[in-house]
């Protein structure tokens, strides 16, 4: 079974300083990994995804994440925080899962979320 642990429920940074949101996962197979962001009263938006190509993945708005198989981690970073980065971030793992219809789909398992606060 797959699982995701986001190690911090809240992270607070000052504008212009680096951001680090930590995520560890477990998966039986070679997973796909995602980071989604949710701004207040909005749906989830994909930030970036890892799909077994390059281990360092670049996403939108200057975010990037590094897949480290030996550490089962997929931490999200940004060199310089902006006020607009304040939101909730979800680390997500996807395994192929077969179902009764005979085809497979990507079952997503979400972490508990990390709320990022950015101070002026």
């Amino acid at each position, binding site marked *: 079974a797959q699982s995701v642990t986001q190690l911090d429920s809240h992270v607070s940074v000052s504008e212009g300083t680096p951001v680090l949101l930590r995520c560890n996962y477990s998966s039986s197979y070679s997973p*796909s990994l995602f980071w989604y962001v949710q701004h207040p009263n909005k*749906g*989830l938006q994909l930030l970036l*995804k890892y*799909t077994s190509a390059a281990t360092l993945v670049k996403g939108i708005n200057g975010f990037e994440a590094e897949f480290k198989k030996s550490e089962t981690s997929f931490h999200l970073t940004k060199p310089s925080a902006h006020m607009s980065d304040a939101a909730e971030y979800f680390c997500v793992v*996807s395994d192929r899962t077969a179902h009764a219809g005979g085809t497979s*789909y990507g079952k*997503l398992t979400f972490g508990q*979320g990390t709320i990022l606060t950015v101070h002026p």
Partner: protein
Amino acid sequence: DVKVTQSSRYLVKRTGEKVFLECVQDMDHENMFWYRQDPGLGLRLIYFSYDVKMKEKGDIPEGYSVSREKKERFSLILESASTNQTSMYLCASSLLAGALYYEQYFGPGTRLTVT
């Protein structure tokens, strides 16, 4: 631009009422999903559908049912709403197997309050 829409942003219902949450996607995706989101718990899968009229239970299906009569529309039904179903409900869609990365696209959510 991909789009998933949900019929209501906010909904208030009374205990025991039958509640319908509607979701429509315009991307011709085969898979559609319903999640509920609660603070500290992330998103949990209620039901998903991989084709018209096909459905499978997710992790927390109790108290819910779904309907998919057309490819673009997926409805979540609370047969008899209870206060513990007060939550944010999110709909998502994705391509079927054969799409390598199973990225899901989400709607804006419906915040349901049951009193």
